């Protein structure tokens, strides 16, 4: 029988964060989604974890969204205009949209959300830092003035910064809104049992047509293989990330009840080389490391092919993606030459800080192995994630493994990472030319011109090699065949509104 139908979640009153108005979803078309981590904060305002977005996208609608090709499409916005200076945006909103608590969605709401997200404590502040002024023109039109041209602006609004929360609910719950999120989205928050699950029920009054599912349940599985086991046994319908256990993907593919969806993702994986610490103050030595790693093999060994080789932050599908991302097979002659130029013809050694998970360990071991033939000795150091970030901030490392999950706009994977003193410029590089190009890139509105800018920047960065781009991980989902209407969106986040379940 269909084992998943037996689990209708009933929120136990003592444990749940349910309010009186929220009751468990009725009916049995409950979509069960496996998540690899517990979403810590469902309020877009304070959310910083990637996994939050998986849930938020079912509760909140955004002003804009991505379509399955990664193109920006309006969502709560009807349309928008931008002036030629790239500083004034006029957004027209859909009308007749109501929040899940029954309040109206309108221009005031948008203004409220922008202002809220610009507060000091907001995690969105950085994304919206160029937003200068928000004016309500009429209930369905807002005008947004930027302090400087910022081409990723609309792209930013396809994510958390564009999610519209109910001002009434925010007023009602205050700081506790994060435990009572209310949006305009297809599903209504029911409960969140920390570390275990989040339950949503259908929003019958959804503006974009009544969702087909009765509800959605996100189950947390920190243990990848366990999640896969649950997918196979029918306890889960959808699994967010199969790359945590790529070795098990074939067995899912073999399963007649399941499909695997694998698409290029937006992010990248690689290694920061600290340009302020020996030996990587020397760009030839950085380049030697960069050129010595065989991306194809790395992908084959670590990702079983569920990734594409990288040489830039721009993944396939990104507007800046192109030749700058092409990789060449390592050539021992070139590497020896680089080592010689770097003054270390007999090789050198460095400490490489990696995370503590098994896959990160494997990553380190593979890098270690690939550098060995050139007498570059790698000593691995496992560091916990928080410490890793701190070391990155402070430059307490020689080499450090941290990737980026990626965003639709090239700037979102570029600017902060490469400009002098950029918050994510862990390599601590300072290249005036790059600083200039990065700024140009975010101010230019024309796509073709932007690509040219980024291409130019990448040639410089290839030469400098302060970050070793290794691969773009695919977004790989496991999907039960009972599910229909699933649309893949390149940001890797599920859109549940269209999904149906047999």
């Amino acid at each position: 029988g269909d084992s998943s139908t037996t689990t209708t979640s009933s929120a136990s009153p003592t444990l749940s964060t349910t309010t009186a108005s929220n009751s468990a979803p009725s009916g049995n078309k409950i979509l069960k989604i496996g998540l690899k981590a517990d979403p810590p904060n469902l309020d877009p305002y304070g959310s910083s974890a990637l996994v939050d977005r998986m849930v938020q996208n079912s509760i909140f609608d955004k002003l804009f969204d991505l379509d399955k090709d990664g193109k920006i499409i309006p969502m709560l916005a009807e349309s928008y205009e931008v002036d030629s200076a790239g500083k004034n945006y006029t957004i027209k909103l859909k009308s007749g949209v109501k929040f899940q608590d029954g309040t109206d969605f309108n221009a005031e709401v948008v203004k409220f959300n922008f202002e809220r997200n610009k507060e000091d404590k907001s995690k969105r502040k950085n994304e919206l830092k160029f937003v200068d002024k928000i004016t309500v023109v009429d209930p369905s039109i807002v005008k947004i003035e930027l302090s400087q041209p910022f081409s990723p602006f609309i792209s930013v609004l396809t994510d958390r910064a564009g999610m519209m929360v109910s001002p009434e609910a925010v007023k009602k719950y205050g700081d506790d809104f994060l435990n009572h999120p209310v949006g305009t989205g297809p599903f209504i928050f029911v409960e969140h049992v920390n570390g275990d699950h989040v339950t949503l029920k259908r929003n019958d009054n959804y503006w974009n047509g009544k969702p087909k599912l009765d509800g959605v349940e996100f189950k947390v599985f920190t243990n990848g293989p366990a999640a896969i086991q649950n997918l196979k046994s029918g306890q889960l319908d959808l699994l967010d990330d199969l790359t945590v256990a790529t070795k098990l993907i074939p067995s899912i593919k073999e399963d007649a009840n399941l499909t695997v969806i694998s698409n290029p993702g937006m992010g990248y994986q690689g290694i920061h080389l600290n340009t302020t610490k020996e030996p990587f103050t020397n760009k030839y030595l950085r380049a030697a490391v960069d050129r010595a790693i065989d991306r194809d093999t790395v992908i084959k060994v670590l990702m079983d092919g569920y990734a594409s080789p990288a040489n830039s932050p721009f993944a396939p599908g990104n507007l800046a993606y192109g030749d700058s991302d092409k990789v060449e097979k390592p050539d021992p002659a070139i590497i020896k030459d680089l080592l010689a130029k770097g003054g270390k013809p007999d090789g050198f050694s460095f400490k490489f800080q990696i995370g503590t998970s098994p896959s990160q360990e494997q990553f380190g071991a593979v890098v270690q192995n690939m550098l060995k033939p050139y007498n570059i000795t790698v000593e691995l150091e496992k560091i916990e994630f928080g410490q890793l970030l701190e070391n990155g901030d402070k430059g307490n490392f020689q080499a450090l493994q941290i990737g980026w999950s990626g965003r639709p706009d090239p700037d979102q994977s570029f600017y902060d990472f490469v400009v002098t003193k950029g918050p994510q410029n862990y390599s601590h590089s300072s290249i005036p030319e790059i600083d200039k190009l990065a700024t140009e890139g975010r101010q230019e509105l024309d796509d073709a011109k932007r690509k040219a800018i980024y291409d130019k920047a990448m040639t410089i960065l290839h030469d400098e090699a302060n970050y070793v781009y290794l691969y773009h991980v695919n977004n790989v989902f496991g999907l039960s065949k009972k599910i229909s209407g699933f649309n893949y969106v390149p940001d890797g986040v599920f859109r549940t509104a269209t999904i149906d379940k047999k």
Partner: protein
Amino acid sequence: MKEFKKFFRTGLGLIGALIIVSLLLAAIFAQQIAPIDPNAQDYNHILEKPSRDHFFGTDDLGRDIFSRVIRGAQISIKAAVISVGIAMLIGIPIGLLSGYYRGFWDEWIVMRSVDAMQAFPFLILALAIAAVLGTGFGNAMLAIGIGFAPSFVRITRGQVLALRSLEYIQAAKAIGVKDRNIIFGHILPNALSPIIIQSTLAMASGILAEASLSYLGLGVQPPAPSWGSMLNQAQGLLSAAPYAAYFPGAAIFLVVLGFNLLGDGLQQYLDPKVKE
């Protein structure tokens, strides 16, 4: 000789000793037993089933699991000896002094701290200490050592309390022997049996704890072949390559069993309370 025979009769203890000796031999002659480099990656032979070339198969980086398991013996022995050594170094002197002098320090500082530390779940204590000290083998050992120390404080103190009222200790005092000599010359040697038993049993736990910490990612630095971290790697592959989990787990099991058997045997042999 009679002593040896007595020990011999406790056959299980002997099996334990045998297992540990084999482990020692494996650690010493790792190079000869498993000549394949445990860290050599062979991307053409990933996750292969056990075969003549790779007795235990290969892991997800194409490394020879047999070699890694054998080398793992070195780490395990070090883990056992170092962690328990640290625990004893901390625990025994504290236990001796606080048991001998009693009083406020003993009752309110030492024993309450021991209580408090034992109210912590052990693994979480070790984990927190390891997190404080940072990952790495040495720190993991220190963490486990500190985690084990309270049990040595307790057992040593218990012995001291039992011994200090014994007439030969009183006699030493009556003779005018200095406290230091009473503690280290008379009490410690007589308190040793249970401490030795405890230490063998703790070594078993030490190996398990090292494996657990490594399993949680706080143990040795990669690519060192700790059995715990091998299992951690293998866990993701249970359905694809279960044998990657069989062997390191079996190795841990065997060695821990060895120490437990030895500890049990020693107990039969040293502890007069365990009657024939």
